[in-house]
C-alpha cells in the first residue's frame, strides 16, 4: 500500500527515525540544564527570602533532593504519559503555558519568515539580474550590515527611531492598554505592535536568503540552458523566474529550512527586547527562574518543530526538483 505513496512512506520513516533523536535531545537538555548552577528552589526562595527549612521543602517538592538519574527517570516516565510536568514559577502545567504563549510567537515568526523569504528571494533575483551595478553593490553592502547586526541592537535602534523619535509605532508589547475598541481596531492595533519586532526578526534571515539567492542565481544565469531559453525568444521575466529561479531555489530552500532553527533562537532576543508575550520571552524568563520543567518542555517543543521544519524542507525538494526521489 505504502509503496503507492512514496512521499507518505518517506514521511513516516523520517518521523520514526526522529524518535531516538528526540530521546537524545531530552537526555542532553536535561543534563545541561541541571549542570547550570542554581536551581528553581533557590530562585523561588530568593523572591521570598525564605529560611533553610523553606528551601529544603521546596527542593523536596520539586523532587530536587533525589539523585539526578532518578529525576531523569521520573521525567521520562511522565513524558511517556504525555505529561510535560508542572512549571515551578507559573504553577501551571507546562503544556498549558506553552500553548498560551505559542500563538504570539507563531504570528511573529510567520510574519517575519514570510517577509524574509519573499523579500530575500525577490531582491536576490533582481540583484542577480543587475549584477555588479551600483544598486547591486549597495544591496550587498546593506545585506552584509543586516547579517552582522545583533538582533537586540537592531531592535533597540528601531525602537528609538520609530517609536520614540518619530512616534509612529508602539515601542513594546502586543496590545495597547488604553482606548482600543474590539474588532478591526484591535486587529490593527496588534499589527502596529507587530511591525517593528517582525522587521527586526526578518532582517537577519532576509539578508541570508538574499545572499544565497543572488549567488546561486548568478551561477545559474551563466549556464547554457539559460542561453538556450533566451535564444528561443522567451521574455526575460519568464527566463528569470521559471527557468533560472527554479534551478537556483534548492539551496535557498535548504537555507530557509535551516533558518527555522535560528528563527527560534532569535525569538528569545526579539521578544525580550519588544516585550512580545511569546515563547522566546518565556524561554528567557524560565531560564532566569531555573524553571526546569518549563525549559525542558520548551526545548522539546522547539526540537520537534525544527524536525518538522526539516521534514517539510525535504518534501519541498521533490516538489521543486523532480529528480529527487524518496527512497
Amino acid at each position: 500500500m505504502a509503496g503507492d505513496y512514496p512521499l507518505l512512506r518517506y514521511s513516516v520513516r523520517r518521523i520514526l527515525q526522529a524518535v531516538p533523536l528526540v530521546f537524545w535531545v531530552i537526555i542532553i537538555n536535561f543534563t545541561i540544564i541541571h549542570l547550570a548552577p542554581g536551581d528553581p528552589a533557590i530562585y523561588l526562595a530568593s523572591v521570598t527570602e525564605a529560611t533553610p527549612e523553606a528551601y529544603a521543602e521546596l527542593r523536596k517538592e520539586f523532587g530536587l533532593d533525589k539523585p539526578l538519574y532518578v529525576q531523569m527517570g521520573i521525567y521520562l516516565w511522565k513524558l511517556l504519559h504525555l505529561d510535560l510536568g508542572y512549571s515551578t514559577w507559573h504553577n501551571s502545567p507546562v503544556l498549558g503555558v506553552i500553548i498560551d504563549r505559542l500563538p504570539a510567537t507563531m504570528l511573529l515568526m510567520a510574519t517575519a519568515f514570510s517577509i524574509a523569504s519573499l523579500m530575500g528571494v525577490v531582491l536576490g533575483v533582481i540583484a542577480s539580474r543587475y549584477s555588479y551595478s551600483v544598486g547591486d553593490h549597495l544591496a550587498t553592502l546593506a545585506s552584509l550590515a543586516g547579517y552582522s547586526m545583533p538582533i537586540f541592537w537592531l531592535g533597540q535602534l528601531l525602537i528609538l527611531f520609530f517609536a520614540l523619535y518619530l512616534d509612529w509605532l508602539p515601542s513594546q508589547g502586543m496590545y495597547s492598554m488604553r482606548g482600543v475598541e474590539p474588532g478591526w481596531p484591535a486587529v490593527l492595533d496588534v499589527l502596529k505592535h507587530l511591525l517593528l519586532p517582525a522587521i527586526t526578526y526578518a532582517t537577519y534571515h532576509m539578508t541570508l536568503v538574499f545572499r544565497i539567492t543572488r549567488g546561486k542565481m548568478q551561477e545559474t544565469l551563466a549556464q547554457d540552458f539559460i542561453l538556450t531559453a533566451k535564444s528561443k525568444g522567451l521574455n526575460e521575466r519568464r527566463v528569470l523566474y521559471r527557468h533560472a529561479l527554479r534551478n537556483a531555489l534548492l539551496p535557498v530552500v535548504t537555507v530557509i529550512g535551516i533558518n527555522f532553527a535560528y528563527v527560534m533562537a532569535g525569538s528569545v532576543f526579539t521578544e525580550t527586547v519588544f516585550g512580545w508575550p511569546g515563547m522566546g520571552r518565556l524561554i528567557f524568563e524560565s531560564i532566569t527562574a531555573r524553571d526546569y520543567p518549563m525549559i525542558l518542555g520548551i526545548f522539546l517543543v522547539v526540537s520537534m518543530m525544527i524536525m518538522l521544519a526539516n521534514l517539510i524542507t525535504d518534501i519541498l525538494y521533490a516538489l521543486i526538483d523532480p529528480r529527487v526521489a524518496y527512497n
Partner: protein
Amino acid sequence: MERRKVRFGSAAIFLVLAAVLVLTHIPGSAWAQKRGGTLVIGLEADPGHFNLIVKPGTTVQVPAVNIYNKLITLDFDLNPKPELAKSWEVKDGGKTLVFHLRKGVKFHDGKEMTSEDVKFSLEKCLPYNPRSRVFWKPVAEKVEAPDKYTIVVRLKKPFAPLLTVMGVIFGGPAIYPKHLWKDHVGSRKAFLNAPYSKKPVGTGPFMLKEYKKGSHVRLVRNPNYWNAPKPYADELVIRFVSDANTRLIALEKGEIDYLRAALIPWDQAARLKKNPKLVVLDKGGEATGQVEFMLLNMRRPITGNVKVRQAIAYALDKNQISQLATGGTAKVADGIMHSAMKWAHKGSFAQYKQDLKMANRLLDEAGYPMRGGKRFSLTVTWAKGRGFEGLAAEVIKQQLKKVGIDIKIESFDRAATLKKVYINHDFDIMMQFFTTGPDPKISVTRVYDRNNIGSANFNNAPSYINVGVQRLLDAEWQIPDVKKRGAAWRQIVDMVAADAPVIPLFETPFVHTHSAKWADVVTRPYCAYCTREDAYQK
C-alpha cells in the same frame, strides 16, 4: 467710603486668588481628585499567579496589593495607620493586641469580611508565608475572634516590631475570604492549586478583570470599595516588560505610566527629571530602606582578618562609588540600616573616611606586606541584573588597587550567584542590595545573627559571630520602649562597624517615576507594594 470699598474688594479678590493658588498646589488636595483613566504600571516579569500566601515576591505583590487589604498600613514616618482595622490596642505589656475591624467591608464576591476571615488568614495562611512566618512563628500563641468585628492576637512574649511589620504586605497577612479558601489549606501545594491563586478575591480597591499571560494583568475598580470614593482610576494595568531599556522608552513614550525606582536606571534619573512629561519622586522607599553592601566572607583567611576588612573600608571613597555607579543619585550609606529608620539608625561607619595611609598600615599589620605594588588578590561577585553593582565593583577594583589589593570581578545570573554565595559560601566579597526596613529585627538581624549562618538566601553570608552583638540581637525586639530599643540598636551598629563584616556603600534612591498626567501614585513608604487606590488622573 468708596476707597475703603475698593480696598476691601481688592483684598477679597486677592484672598480668593491666593486660596485658588494654594489649593491647586497642594498635592492630592481632596477636591482635585476625579475618577477615570487607566494607570499602566511596568513590571519586570509575569507573576504566574497572585498567591501572596506562598509567594510574597515583588512580581506577585505589585498586582496583589491592589486586590487585597491588610489590617493596618504605614505612613511615611513608618507609623501604623488604619486599613481594615479602624483601631487597635496593645495590652499586657505588649503581649496582647486587640484589633477593631471596620464594619460593612465586602469581598469582591459580595460577602462581608468579618473577624472569622482575619482569624483564618492569621492562623491558616500566615504559617505558609515563607517570609512572615519567620517572625510570627516564634511569638504567636493564639488568635481569638470574640465577636464579628474584634480580633485578639495573643503572643508568647512581647514583640515590639509587630505593628510596623503588619503594616507591610510581606509582614502581616492580607485578609483572605475564609468561605473560598477553607478547603484549600494545609500545604504550599494546596494553596497554590486553589482556583483563587489565579482568580483572587479580596477586599481591595481593584478586582481582577483579565490576565493575559506574558503580556499584562488588567484590574478594574471595585465599585463597593470600603474607602470610597477611592480608587480613582477606572482600571489598573500591570504590564510585563523584561528589557530595562524598552521599559524606560515605554515610560518616556507614555505607554507605561509608572516604574518603581528599582526599574529606573539610576544614572538616568537626572535626565528623566528634566522631562516635563514625567515626575521623578524622592519618597516611597522608607519602609523597604534598601542599602547596597559589600559582604566580606569571614570564612576566608584574608577577609577573615578584621584588619583587612577595616583596611578595605578605609581604602574606599564611597562618594566616588555612588557618583560613578549611580550617577550621584544615591546617598552615601554610613550604617547597617537605612537612615529613614531614624529611631535606630546610627552612622557608625562614617569613621571609615577614605584614608589610604591608615589602610596601608592596617594591611601591613595584618601581615600582608606590599610586594611589587601588590599584597593579595580577592574576587568581587555580583549578580547580573543590577548593573549598578557591576559598575560599583569596577570602581572598587580601581580604588583598592591603590593599597595593593588586586580585585577580580565575577558575575553570574541571579540563581547561580545566590547558590554560590548563600548556599556554598564560595566567595570573598559579594555586592548585595539589602532591604533593611521597615524594622531592623525583620531585615537587618538576619545578616548578623549567628543562628542564621546556614544554607538559605540572604542569611548571615559573612558568617559573622560577635557574642555582644548576639546578646543585644536576642533581646532588643522584646523591649517595648522605642527609645531603649533604639539605644540597643545603636550599640549594635557601633560593634558591627568596628568588626566590619559588611561595608555599606550607598542608600538606594527613591526615584520612582510616573507620568505627569497622574498624581498620588505613591502614597505609602513601600514603592512596589503600594496600593494605587489614591492615584488619580490630573
